[in-house]
């Protein structure tokens, strides 16, 4: 089937099988391997991308369902060489260890901060509810999102991430 999908601002027209999952379209057809396949069952969220402004699990969506949609992946969040505040937060606050969940975590966090510029710690934890991390215990991920939120609000990000309860 012919699909037309805008990915990170670039329009792509492709002939795909109906069974091609969106995550495989991104990784194998477009070569955007930043989006990870984790559990492949809909649980872990490593494959999270933003479709028409809403974060979703791309291992559980068909490419044909995204026909006509606007998709954002982790490759599209930075502004050229300048990291997105969420990426910078993960860097500064040690928000990753093995890094496998990180692309999904970043996309959920970007979507969260776009709908809620100043989330509480609870709201951050709810915002990344669909993303599993087996390394960090989430503590530094929450700090990273707080850092990013502060930076995006024009506040001092270094002060924002110190209030997370252990």
């Amino acid at each position: 089937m012919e699909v037309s999908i805008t990915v990170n601002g670039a329009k792509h027209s492709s002939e795909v099988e109906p069974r091609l999952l969106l995550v495989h379209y991104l990784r194998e057809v477009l070569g955007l391997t930043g989006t990870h396949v984790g559990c492949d069952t809909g649980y872990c969220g490593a494959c999270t991308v933003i479709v028409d402004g809403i974060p979703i699990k791309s291992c559980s969506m068909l490419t044909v369902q995204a026909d006509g949609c606007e998709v954002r992946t982790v490759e599209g969040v930075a502004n050229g060489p300048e990291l997105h505040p969420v990426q910078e937060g993960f860097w500064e606050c040690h928000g990753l260890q093995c890094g496998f969940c990180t692309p999904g975590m970043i996309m959920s966090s970007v979507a969260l901060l776009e709908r809620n510029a100043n989330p509480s710690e609870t709201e951050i934890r709810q915002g990344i509810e669909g993303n599993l991390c087996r390394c960090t215990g989430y503590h530094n991920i929450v700090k990273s999102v707080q850092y990013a939120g502060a930076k995006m609000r024009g506040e001092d990000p270094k002060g924002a991430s110190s209030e997370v309860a252990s």
Partner: protein
Amino acid sequence: MYPPNFDYVAPTSLDEALAALAGAENTKVLSGGMSLIPLMKMRFVRPTTVVDISRIPGLDDVTDDGDHITIGAMVRHATTASHPLVQEHASALAEAANGTADLLVRNRGTTCGSLALNAVAADQPGAALALNATMHAASVRGTREIAAADFFLDAMTSALAPDEILTKITIPKGGVSTYRKLGRRGGSSDYPIAAAAVWVDVSDGSVSDARIALNGVSSTPYLAVGSAEALVGSDGSADAIASAASHATDGVNVLEDLYATVAFRTHLAGVYVRRALEDVLA
């Protein structure tokens, strides 16, 4: 993991979708896909034709229709959870939707899809039972209404025929309701180990009507008739609530799995009926 091959159609009108379902063998309706796509990947279901109803206009509304509210086939869990009409008139369903899976799944999956699938322990079928929802099914043969009490037949089995689409559900206004669950991870998300959805109508200090549904307790959600009978006509006191809770699993084949023994799950059923009733009768 790729699902097996299938033909995919994405009609832009309900009539086209119904014709596609009637015209092919072994079809499945795709709304959000949060259950169907994983089930296809695991080869539990292998449809030859998938009919995607997400491009049909008018199916994604929650509306106020006088004495009831209507939830369309494409209303996603996240909308059901947060919509003011659902929160006001069907709070048990809003709470059940809010506790369904995780945020990313709630952004795609649909309330009607969850009801049509009737997965074991799924949150929203219990709430639909307690709220006395009416299921509106359509096929090329016409439309019909199915009461929630007649809809959830068994695990992964609803009263829908293979060529039917659950186009909407309607929920009567009135009374107060809530949903309480014990999730597998200790919080509200994920399938419940046991859950209770309760609806009560109180007038002049006494419970004039009640429906108490449990999900996650048996292979399909059910109405605990004995619990409701114990409550109706009472003053809703702690004693009346305790009596209602004691009938939560009467005549029911309680599930046993790695999360709970029969004895523990039977205990939990009573606990969650009690907590939910304490909440609505406080």
